[in-house]
């Protein structure tokens, strides 16, 4: 398959997957581009699954690297300078809070559950999720059921914790 076509079709999806996974868009774009650079070298026969496998590995590595924290700060600063103007402050605040809460809820999931859920949301079939995560196809339904349940529970908990803090203030 022509990789440039894969790039046109799946770059956004790959960035979104990485952004949801690591919470930093600039870094997600970097890693997605890195995955495509590697794909040019490896010429995988199933590029989409291969790219998301590599991206998931890169995201895991990202989480392990302490030095990334420093880079994060730099990137966030650079991103703030480069991005278009923010929406009105109250909307932006509300959105940021929602994003923070969902990110925190996702972070409470087991890595495999989180990745399965994010891959499903990117349109992956059970077969493809099983291939990327190295799981059996038969376990994907259970993994997704657990991931969905825990995400909803974690989000509710985080939200109620936030409300309690507001009341306390």
């Amino acid at each position, binding site marked *: 398959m022509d990789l440039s076509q894969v790039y046109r079709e799946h770059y956004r999806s790959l960035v979104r997957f990485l952004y949801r996974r690591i919470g930093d868009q600039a870094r997600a774009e970097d890693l997605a581009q890195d995955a495509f650079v590697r794909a040019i*070298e490896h010429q995988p026969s199933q590029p989409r699954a*291969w790219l998301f496998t590599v991206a998931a590995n890169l995201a895991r*590595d990202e989480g392990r690297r302490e030095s990334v924290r420093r880079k994060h700060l730099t990137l966030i600063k650079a991103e703030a300078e480069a991005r278009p103007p923010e929406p009105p402050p109250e909307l932006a605040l509300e959105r940021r809070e929602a*994003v923070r809460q969902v990110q925190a809820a996702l972070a409470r999931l087991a890595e495999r559950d989180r990745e399965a859920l994010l891959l499903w949301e990117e349109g992956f079939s*059970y077969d493809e999720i099983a291939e990327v995560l190295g799981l059996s196809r038969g376990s994907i339904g259970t993994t997704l059921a657990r991931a969905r349940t825990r995400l909803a529970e974690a989000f509710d908990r985080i939200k109620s914790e936030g409300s309690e803090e507001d009341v306390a203030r």
Partner: protein
Amino acid sequence: MSHVDDGRLHAFLDGEYGEREHQQIEQHLAACGVCRERLEEAKALSLRASELVATLEPDPLHAPSWREIEERAAARARARPHRHWLRPSLASAAVIAIAFGLGWLSRSYVPGAPDLARPAERKAEMPAAAELQADAASEQPLARDARPVEAEQEAPAGRRVESPAKAAATEPAAAQKREPAGGLAAEADEADQHAAGRSRDKLAEPAAQPPALATKLENEARDAPELGRAAEFADQALPAADAIGGVEARKSVFRTVAGDEAALERYFSVEPAAAAVWLGAELRTLPDLRLKRVQVGPGGEAQGGGVAGLPAVRLVYEDAAGHEIVLIQQRVSDPEASGADAGPALIIDPSGTRAYRWHDGRGYLLTLIGEVSSDSLRALAERVR
């Protein structure tokens, strides 16, 4: 039919079942009010999870052109050294083996020098520690003759155990490419990079300089006796207990007569067949990973250990995610005599690199090194064949 479990309900909802299984579940749902209710809950849960995840939508993306991506790939390829010349013919490999062999032989036949290449035999012949120390003391002047000025200063340095990151940087292969996983080379700790840079500055980098290879091999053959004497000196500078085979203390003992640290722990790329000759046994390999290069050397690589002075083979692989996985193997018929640790050991470098070392029960001391998780290393270890 018993109730449909959550996993099957979600798979049903997600449209992941074939016609037959789908119908079976539909039939059950038609007859089971409990499962129908659970199905509705699962629907709501699935929708809610999707809505929550959709909250995390990135801003408009920066998408470089495909041409830019290709250029980055080309730049990355250029940044890697060409290795075609590093795969010499079998004849060249034989020259390497002979060069190292000369070094070993010369070192083995220098009076009083312990034969590092045959630790098991050496153990049988090993005098008592006190005798060895006495021997070492008696041989010390000879070594000083070889290195009149540096000897006293360099002897303690020979015992220094480098940090894994620094030691890795002293390795020619490492100088070729030590890209951390994920292409995050720039994120390596600055201090380590600085140290690595300093070490690289000192290196002759034989493997990265094609024209110098032939010269280097010639020098290797010519200087082998010198190397042997230098190694002997370093051996004698170590306490007897270390000379018996303390792996940690035996790192970095290889140095030239001039005290040039560039000579530490050299590995040379060869064809796999030559590597098997060097090892004196069939190579252990990792299936399903891309083999990038095969190298031979004197062993004792600091990172992950290994027995210094025993022929070692490094197989450098790359996994699907671009992680470099190195499998180092040495033939150790008697682990105790070699001084290597008997049990499996996991070594974690502060930089994040992990090494897993074990004896396989077939006479191999194996070390896997990679910037992957400990679990991944263990899983890879099980796949070595």
